[in-house]
């Protein structure tokens, strides 16, 4: 079971690395205003996120089984229960994982800042540009023709 936990952790690290790599592509798509690429990346990252979440669920379940305990079991706590021969491996995996997660989080936060700021610009420009006629465009940016309905209040 400890071996299974090790391979789950290794797989999780692999997926996080992938996520980290795609953040660079996401940044480029934002800068290049390539909405097609941006949406592709977001979809891919979303799939990665789901896979990571599945592995994480699996890891938590394994941990609970291994130490017969409910609630949140931190990886750092789990090391103390591991067989002596595997402790070093778990410490290395745990360190690698935490470092990777922290890197990703840092990058995700700057990216959130970038996206929020750019979004602010876009929204400001749209409000200036459409000048109160926002309803004339749909969410794909296509112009919507008025159907010419006339609404009247009746008694």
């Amino acid at each position, binding site marked *: 079971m400890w071996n299974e936990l090790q391979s789950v952790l290794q797989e999780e690290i692999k997926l996080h690395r992938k*996520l980290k790599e795609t953040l*660079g592509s*996401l*940044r*480029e798509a*934002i*800068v*290049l*205003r390539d*909405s097609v690429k*941006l*949406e592709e990346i*977001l979809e891919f*990252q*979303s799939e990665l*996120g789901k896979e*990571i*979440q599945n592995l*994480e669920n699996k890891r*938590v379940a394994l941990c609970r089984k291994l130490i017969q305990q409910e609630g*949140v*079991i*931190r*990886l*750092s*706590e789990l090391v103390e229960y591991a067989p002596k021969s595997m402790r070093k491996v778990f410490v290395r995996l*745990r360190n690698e*994982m*935490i470092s990777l*997660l922290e*890197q*990703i*989080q*840092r*990058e*995700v936060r*700057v*990216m*959130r*800042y*970038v*996206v*929020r*700021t*750019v*979004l602010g*610009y*876009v*929204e400001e*420009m*749209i409000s*200036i*540009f*459409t000048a109160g006629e926002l309803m004339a*465009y749909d*969410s*794909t*940016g*296509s*112009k919507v023709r008025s159907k010419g309905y006339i609404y009247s209040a009746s008694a």
Partner: protein
Amino acid sequence: MSGFAGLSIAMRALRAAQMSMEVSGHNIANANTPGYSRQRVELVESLPDLTPWGVKGTGVEISRIARVREEYLDLQLRNETKLLGQWEEIEKFLSRLELYFNEPSDEGLNNLMSEFWARWQDLSLTPEEQTSRSNLLQQSDVLANAFNTLYDKMQDLRYDADEAIKSYIQEINSLAQNIASLNKQIRFYEVGDAVANDLRDQRDEMLRELSELIDFNSEEQPDGTILVSIGGVNLVNKVFTEEMSYRFNEEGHIVPIWKTNNAPVEIKAGKLKGVLDARDNKIPTYISRINEIARAIISEVNKQHSKGWGLEAFSSLRSAYSISDTGEEISSSDSGLTFYNVVNDGDFVITVNDDSGNTVSTDTVNIVTGAGGTTTDDIVSTIGSDFTSGISHLRAYVDSDGYLNIEAEAGYRFFINQDTSGALAALGLNTFFKGEDAGTIAVNDPIVENVKFIAASSSGEIGDGNNAVEIAQLKDATLMDNESATIYDYYASTLGVLGVDKKESENLKKGQEVLITHIKNSIEDVSGVSLDEEAMNLLKFQHSYQAAARFLGVIDEMLDTLINEVGRR
């Protein structure tokens, strides 16, 4: 990757994205600015970091903000614009000429000439009636005034052209100054790889405006400035300009020159060329044709008129035309006579009557042309310079202004007519009109003073209107264009030529307009801002960025949980 490196990439990304948005905004804001070219951000991979683990990408950065512009189309637009300007001007002036001719209308020359001949016809039926004579005088006056007015308007049009030329010269100088100033700014801003897009757009627009006015060559210099030359002279060279000015020619019209050396400006196309062409070629052609018509009417009517008899004899008569050299043959231009060329070999008759109307004497004056032919002095000598010499009771002299005067002694009067030589028409004695062209044609003074001097009779008999008939029939005589056309034909052909000229300039103008619209559309396709496209892009970005923001938020939360679950020590 260190936290600082990540931040640096993020800042570069943010800057690039912001710039991209700003360029979009700039495009939208200038969608309706004439000459504005769509701009786009060009991005390149930024220089990679060398790390102990190898080369690491550092994202993208802005290479430059480029103008989306096709230089070839600009050049084509300028080339066609100058021709449009030229034809626009010509068409404008020809339209005004057409208005001045005012045909067909009651006030047009065609109708006035027709009325004029009709009044001669009327007079031939009732030659002794004062009313017929007064009607003829009135109609002749109207016709002469119409010629004068048309002539004056056409001459004024040439002076209007001068005003237009002056203002175009000012515009050219002003545009040259602006282009030089933009050269300076562009040179200043374009250090390294920077491109001053908006300034270049402004300069291109000014070059287009300049091409409306005049043809020129332009060449971009390595420092980003543009060299503009006209006929080999540099109008704009970097930040310097050569000023255009003007001087007056012998006719009092403006000639564009370069201020530094007074050399004339070589103008091949553009509005300036159009105005000059209208002023120096088109309008003078029509002035010349109208002058020819007026001259034909003056000389032919006068020739016939001087053959006839009025109801009353003269007590004195002053020639309508001055003689600059009385010793020269009257058939020679050296005499200074305007209509010297109507003089042939022949004679005219002077009849002297007493106060009761009895004929005292009849003398024939022979006129000989060519070298040694009759001079004004000879005529004076024949008549005699006092009442006793030459023809009794008459004397002749040339006054200080060069006019030949014939006077009868008190108690006597005279007729001077039956001219077969044209000498009287050349001198303006017993003639109906005075003046020499459309600008000066007028009814001769003696007839204005007394309509009885109108020579309607061929014989001098009461009721004879044959000379008036002869004059009325001039309308059908082929007097113009080497005796191939009547005055009517010639006038009609003048109007026809004007119509064709105007139609041609209209067609060429329209052709140029179509061509320019086509080029402008091509430029718009390449460089124009599509508001729909920009709006669509913005909304797409908004949608995508909103999704990205939401996703990154989820990821951030997930990472928080994960970091917590992995656990820090």
